[in-house]
């Protein structure tokens, strides 16, 4: 396993992207907040409204604020045309700017309100125009307080910018999110370490400028500003050296299977001569729209997810019909090409410990009906509210003695320790094989299928090279191979692998 010190040097790109994003957001927030503060100092109403709105923004969790800009920008395409980016830098910039507004605005307004009355009267008395008063008196006297606000905003923004990963903007959040999902703690620590270091460095530099302003020391003020400018320029230069040609962007949702499949797809495309880029850990809700709008190019999604979330269907016409309907719907409505099914499902299923199932003589959901009142069922926290559970319960008339919620990781432990007899599992989860669990058959077809399907954005839907490179994946990945790869990434022992290593193993197992 790589240590944090091996990982840090490789984070240069992410750091540069993080610096550029944060600096842009703070700069933009200053451009908005400072004139607004001047206006607010002239009008109590403006002051109250501006501060209330900025405070309101702060009450929205940063993660949600970032995600909200995706549908907003998508709807704005009606006005600005399809060239408007909906993922990546633009929405991240907008959300972080909103977030940075409050501390800057509040400090600037407070600084203005606390200016010595006598000094302001003197400014009028000696004949300053409003502009001269602002430039010669109000701005320089408020500057140290405004700088303190900018410092606060910078620390917040640099921290919150790690969340930009979820909307496809590269940042120091990339290693954090990837590490969290694959339980690679060195990766998580490296990302946290880098972003905390950046925040501290920015805080200290801006502190130097603040003290310089307060003590009227030009050396400190301009020295601090020069170092800040140099840092931003270096980051811009580092970003500028990347190629500007559009690469093929492969998305993954935040769980191991998605990371592995993204690496598998990427490796095949690179072997075919394509330049690829990964957008790891995208929010599940964002991925589908992002493919449809060509903000990303390739994603693996699941039929059941699209069926309920986008087609808004609640019936279950069977695995084959569901796939055909989705494929046609995607082509017709979104221009998205569903290249095909990878061959495995990541469905909800009910699993039991092998010995327990044998002892009770249970192999299918139908066998459970009579025994259920004596048994305890465990599910992830949302499971008992999901349509899948309701469908199964009603189709078989299942009445369990007890139902309990567990975090997904602990469900398997609960099964082992006997705290639960049956759990809701994911069929491609590596722990099914590792723990020798029995997946109960579903003769009534109550559970919808979750075939993993490969989706291509309209931009590359007709790209023969891409299709040729990816066609061999269709139907090639068995659920056993996928489970093994997932387990390799999820396990905690010395055999733990990175998603890239697991992808290589998966390719071998699939005979590619």
């Amino acid at each position: 396993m790589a240590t944090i010190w091996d990982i840090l040097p490789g984070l240069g790109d992410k750091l540069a992207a993080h610096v550029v994003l944060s600096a842009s957001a703070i700069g933009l927030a200053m451009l908005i907040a400072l004139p607004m503060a001047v206006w607010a100092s002239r009008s109590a109403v403006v002051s109250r409204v501006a501060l209330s709105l900025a405070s309101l923004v702060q009450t929205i969790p940063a993660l949600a604020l970032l995600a909200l800009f995706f549908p907003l920008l998508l709807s704005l395409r009606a006005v600005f045309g399809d060239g408007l980016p909906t993922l990546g830098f633009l929405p991240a910039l907008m959300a972080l700017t909103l977030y940075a507004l409050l501390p800057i605005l509040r400090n600037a307004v407070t600084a203005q309100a606390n200016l010595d009355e006598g000094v302001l009267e003197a400014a009028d008395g000696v004949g300053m125009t409003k502009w001269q008063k602002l430039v010669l008196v109000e701005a320089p006297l408020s500057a140290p307080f405004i700088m303190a606000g900018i410092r606060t905003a910078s620390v917040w923004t640099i921290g919150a910018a790690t969340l930009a990963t979820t909307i496809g903007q590269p940042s120091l959040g990339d290693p954090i999110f990837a590490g969290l999902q694959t339980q690679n703690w060195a990766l998580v620590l490296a990302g946290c370490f880098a972003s905390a270091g950046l925040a501290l460095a920015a805080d200290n530099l801006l502190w130097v400028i603040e003290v310089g302003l307060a003590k009227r020391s030009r050396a400190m003020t301009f020295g601090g500003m020069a170092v800040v400018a140099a840092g931003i320029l270096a980051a811009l230069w580092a970003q500028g050296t990347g190629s500007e040609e559009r690469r093929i962007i492969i998305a993954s949702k935040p769980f191991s299977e998605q990371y592995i499949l993204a690496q598998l797809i990427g490796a095949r495309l690179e072997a075919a001569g394509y330049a690829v880029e990964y957008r790891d850990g995208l929010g599940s809700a964002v991925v589908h729209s992002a493919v449809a709008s060509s903000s990303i190019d390739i994603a693996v999604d699941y039929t059941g997810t699209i069926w309920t979330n986008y087609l808004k269907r609640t019936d279950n016409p069977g695995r084959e019909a569901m796939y055909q309907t989705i494929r046609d719907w995607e082509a017709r409505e979104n221009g998205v090409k569903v290249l095909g099914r990878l061959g495995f499902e990541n469905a909800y299923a009910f699993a039991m410990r092998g010995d327990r199932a044998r002892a009770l003589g249970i192999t299918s959901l139908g066998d459970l009906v009579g025994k259920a009142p004596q048994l305890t069922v465990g599910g992830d926290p949302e499971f008992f509210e999901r349509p899948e559970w309701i469908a199964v319960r009603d189709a078989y008339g299942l009445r369990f003695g007890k139902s309990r919620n567990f975090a997904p990781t602990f469900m398997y432990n609960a099964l082992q320790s006997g705290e639960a007899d049956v759990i809701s599992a994911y069929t491609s989860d590596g722990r099914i094989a590792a723990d020798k669990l029995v997946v109960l058959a579903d003769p009534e077809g109550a559970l919808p299928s979750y075939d993993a399907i490969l989706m291509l954005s309209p931009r590359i839907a007709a790209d023969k090279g891409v299709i040729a490179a990816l066609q061999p994946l269709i139907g090639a990945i068995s659920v056993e191979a996928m489970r093994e790869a997932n387990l390799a990434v999820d396990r905690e022992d010395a055999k733990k692998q990175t998603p890239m290593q697991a992808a290589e193993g998966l390719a071998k197992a699939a005979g590619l």
Partner: protein
Amino acid sequence: METPAPLLRFDGVICRFGEVTAVGGVSCDIAAGSFVALVGASGSGKSTLLKTVNTLVHPSEGRVLFGGEDVSTLEPARLRRRVGYVFQGIGLFPHFSVAENIAIGPRLAGEKLPPERIAELLALVELDPAFAKRMPDALSGGQRQRVGVARALAGGPELLIMDEPFGALDPVTRDALGRKVRELHERLGLTTVMVTHDMAEALLLADRVLVMDKGALVADETPRALLAGAGGTVAQRLVSVPREQAERLAAMEGSGEAQR
């Protein structure tokens, strides 16, 4: 004696702030070269009236004429360069040196004051030229107000208006600075209007005392006439305070003599 053309004329000035009428119709002329004290209790409207001169306050009705021109028609920044303003809050710019504070008015007009002129202005208010480089927070209260006066005089104003200029100073400094301002008034041929609530200060410095009460001008007398009992009840009540204090002090001295 023939009255010279007035430099300043208040013409039916009324100032209202919402429900409150601070100045309720004041008309009077102030001759060039005179030193006028505007006296009254707190809330009598004297400061408000004074601030209509440099348009820090705009009258609700009536007008203020400066050199025959309605001040509301003059560009505020230009007007305020011709009217030196000294006030209780002093308001030195804390981020400017003493020299920069003094030079601000001319600087706004695009003129750079040479160091000799700064030294001359400092000398006028009896401060050492070495003060030029100091920052305001390194000065005592009295020194600050001296700089405030020098700043008001830097642009060579025709009129000096002062709002409780010595109100925050200790009595010794207050007396010394009062005399200094009176002396500068004579030397530079200024016209001066000083707002104060201290009748003794008004009587000792001014050559004309206006008394305000509840927004109205209730007396307009020379100091000598006020001491002789003119000006009506409000004015006499204000005059009686320093007079009685002086009498008590004199009596104390007398009895001290007697005891010896």
